[in-house]
């Protein structure tokens, strides 16, 4: 709105609504085009945000959003004193930090390695193959995982032979849950996530390398002084986005993989929201838990973005 006002700096300022009415008359076709989109956003994106008001209510479907009884912060207090609160927080943070530490760099390393391949053919093959698992659905991935880490599954057998572990159904052991989750995540998404880095790598000016070679820089020096610095802006953007998704850990996959036996390590905030809300119909309580989750997500993006922007780096906004 500010820029629009600045454009018209020479015209004597009229009240905002009057200017808006004029603008709408002039550009009515554009506004009409946007109307369906606007309606969609109001109902399906902002509707649920207003729907969060039920976390301050004792929501009863029969009474609806407006007529249910207001109860203040009761549900939030209940959540913070919930016996599972710390377990949920710990699991959510552990799983998302593990993806940040293991999955996130794996895509960067893969992009660097693909970029250094001298044979174009091999480079294409590696890309094609490494993207494949991304197109396989979560349900199928989880089905394959079940097969491979079962009592006689391929991965269980390999681990049993290499490290002498007891062949069991690894999905039923709490200790294996996070490694299975992270390992399959890397397997599925490493290739796909490397695309953004590859496209950033192709954008690097080749003359930089020529100049460095003339100055006697070897491959390693070129990597440290040209390639990686050129990748940093991309890495920062992807990092902020990743941090923003931290509390949104892939609950669809967890929901398909976990069992009450592994809740100890596998139950995260979102899966808890699902069980309390969808299975037990505790709408208001689970909405409050989800609200907490959304706020934390938003704050994380906001804070990381501010930090990287202040430190002179790249940022989302």
């Amino acid at each position: 709105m500010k820029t629009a006002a600045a454009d018209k700096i020479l015209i004597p300022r009229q009240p905002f609504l009057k200017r808006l009415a004029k603008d709408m008359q002039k550009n009515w076709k554009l506004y009409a085009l946007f109307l369906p989109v606007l309606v969609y956003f109001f109902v399906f994106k902002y509707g649920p945000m207003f729907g969060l008001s039920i976390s301050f209510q004792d929501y009863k479907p029969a009474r609806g959003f407006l007529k249910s009884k207001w109860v203040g912060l009761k549900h939030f207090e209940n959540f913070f004193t919930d016996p599972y609160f710390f377990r949920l927080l710990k699991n959510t943070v552990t799983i998302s930090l593990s993806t940040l530490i293991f999955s996130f760099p794996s895509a960067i390393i893969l992009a660097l390695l693909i970029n250094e391949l001298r044979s174009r053919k091999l480079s294409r093959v590696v890309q094609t193959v490494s993207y494949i698992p991304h197109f396989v659905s979560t349900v199928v991935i989880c089905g394959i995982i079940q097969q491979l880490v079962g009592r006689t599954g391929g991965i269980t057998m390999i681990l049993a032979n290499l490290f002498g572990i007891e062949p069991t159904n690894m999905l039923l052991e709490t200790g294996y849950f996070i490694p299975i989750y992270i390992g399959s995540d890397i397997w599925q998404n490493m290739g796909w996530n490397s695309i953004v880095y590859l496209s950033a790598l192709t954008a690097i000016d080749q003359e930089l390398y020529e100049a460095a070679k003339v100055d006697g820089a070897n491959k390693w020096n070129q990597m440290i002084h040209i390639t990686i610095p050129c990748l940093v802006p991309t890495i920062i953007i992807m990092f902020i986005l990743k941090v923003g998704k931290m509390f949104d850990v892939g609950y669809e996959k967890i929901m398909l993989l976990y069992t009450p036996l592994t809740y100890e390590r596998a139950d995260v905030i979102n899966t808890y929201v699902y069980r309390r809300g969808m299975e037990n119909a505790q709408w208001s309580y689970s909405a409050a838990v989800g609200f907490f989750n959304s706020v934390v997500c938003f704050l994380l993006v906001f804070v990381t973005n501010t930090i990287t922007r202040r430190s002179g780096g790249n940022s989302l906004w």
Partner: protein
Amino acid sequence: MRQNREQSSKIRIPLGERIFYMADNVLMILLCVVILIPLIHVVAGSFSDGTKYMSHVGILLWPLDFTLEAYEAVARNPNIWTGYSNTLFVVFVGTVLNLLFSLIAAYVLSRKNYMLKRLFNLMVVFSMYFSGGMIPFFLIVRSVGLYNSIWSLIIPPLINVFNLVIVRTAMLGVPDSLEESAQLDGAGHLTVLFRIITPLIKPTVAVIALYYAVSHWNSWFNASLFLKKRNMYPLQLILREIIIQNDLSASSTGDEAFFMSETIQFATIVVATLPILCVYPFIQKYFVKGIMVGAVKG
């Protein structure tokens, strides 16, 4: 000293680098193998004899007693067929509407001379970073009457904000002059959008179309929230019954199901995954071009 040698022989590749290239090649080939093995296991398993597979231990690289009986069992299963047709409906209708809405929204967001531009953009970007979450979303979808309707898989995910922002960024890269000259010739907004801008950003549109289609093909969670009638289930929900919950009644009938349960699972996976894997190589050439990281900046 090593440094010196490298400087003096610029034409020949230094030994260190040659070792690096070799290691890189080997590593990448190994990676491909590791990525493919689980998939090979599935395909080999789907062609195997059920009883033989049950007593098999470890990774499978080749079918045990090649047979098509698992596929025959899959083909006899009516749930797979209804699931397939439901999914195809959602993928085609859904993706077309996704593209229509995303292109129109991106077009309006990337225009310059109207007052609410900043407000609209802010509205869109904010919804990328903050959401109401699962429960209010479910209640809203139910309250607008989409509960137990196949449209609940199409209308609520009509616009993915991430994809929208990518399209918008691509449109911002199209020179204004093209649009202006078209408007002088009397072209309206829709003509400019679909006749001039869309063809110019074809790589982006192709990638976005693939994103939407894949997400429809693979999504199961919303369907599990919104659909209660079996005959509306998309393929992935049927798959979940067969391969995750190991519900034999969903996969087949009778005694054969017991001995073949695992090979049937594999055959179902192949049948449900192959179509999407056949589409993606055609769009792959656009991936690196179509998604630059600048695209996601708000």
